[in-house]
């Protein structure tokens, strides 16, 4: 076995360079510096700022599937799962109308549901911030979680 390591490195470097060049020049590219889930109009808030809003009485909405909300949630959060939006929205609407501020979260940076729910809320006339990096970051920061099972 005689591997030419220069060729090996060259394949990796050439492939990566082509990819970066294509991304910059093809018109199909994407912004590399931020999550592709973030679109114009999305308002993101950091974990700590979210905690401040929670203490001020902001309404938190859990965009994950309802079974996850049943197991645990940010204290006081209502379920507003993305796949059952219309029904859950009707349940949450009275609280939304009274809320001083609204924050939507889901399960971290890989989760698009909080973005989709926040946009649907915007279409209905409610401004909602997206909790950046969602529930995992909340837990990592040692912030409180309500783990009492709900039906």
């Amino acid at each position, binding site marked *: 076995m005689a591997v030419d390591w220069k060729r*090996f490195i060259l394949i*990796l470097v050439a*492939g990566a360079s082509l990819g970066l060049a294509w991304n910059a020049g093809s018109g199909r590219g994407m912004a*590399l*510096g931020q999550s592709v889930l973030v679109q114009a109009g999305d308002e993101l808030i950091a974990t700590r700022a979210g905690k401040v809003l929670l203490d001020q009485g902001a309404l938190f909405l859990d965009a994950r599937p309802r079974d996850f909300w049943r197991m645990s949630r940010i204290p006081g959060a209502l379920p507003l799962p993305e796949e059952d939006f219309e029904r859950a929205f009707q349940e949450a609407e009275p609280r939304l109308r009274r809320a001083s501020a609204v924050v939507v979260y889901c399960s971290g*940076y890989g989760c698009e549901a909080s973005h989709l729910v926040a946009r649907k809320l915007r279409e209905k006339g409610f401004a909602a911030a997206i909790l950046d990096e969602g529930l995992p970051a909340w837990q990592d920061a040692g912030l409180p979680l309500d783990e009492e099972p709900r039906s």
Partner: protein
Amino acid sequence: MSALVAHPRVQLVLRLLLGALFVYASLDKIASPAAFAKVIYQWQVVGPVPSNLVAVTLPWIELAAGLLLLAGAWKREAALVVALLLVVFIAAAALVMARGIDVQNCGCVSVTANTAPSAWPPAWTKGVGWFLVARNLLLLGVAMALVVVTPVRRPAPLALPVPTE
């Protein structure tokens, strides 16, 4: 076994199969890098910005290595690149499984969002799980066979003795 893998025709078939698979797997990701980035986020192995870099560069490395394998140029090095990628994929899948993250579409070949659940192919072939790890281990074996084994041409059979009368 090694004699079989060293057979030039077996080497040719393995090389073409592996090359075609990696070229094919790269195309959808090259066409929709943002959709591929979303899939990488779901693996939750590296954060969003490093995931973006992976989404933009990885498919082109797959394409380059796949095309070289198809062309038969720099065979060992291209196969070693494929092997390296597979090792990374296997390690990332192990991490995803160990943390209990549910990734329904691994983004291995197609990055389109899975909409209606279809009966075929079954979901366990698309998600991150034991099937993916087993498949990648098999592909890793093929890649390493191309790296390590030198094709051996059997000596031509000796001329048959001409029967004499």
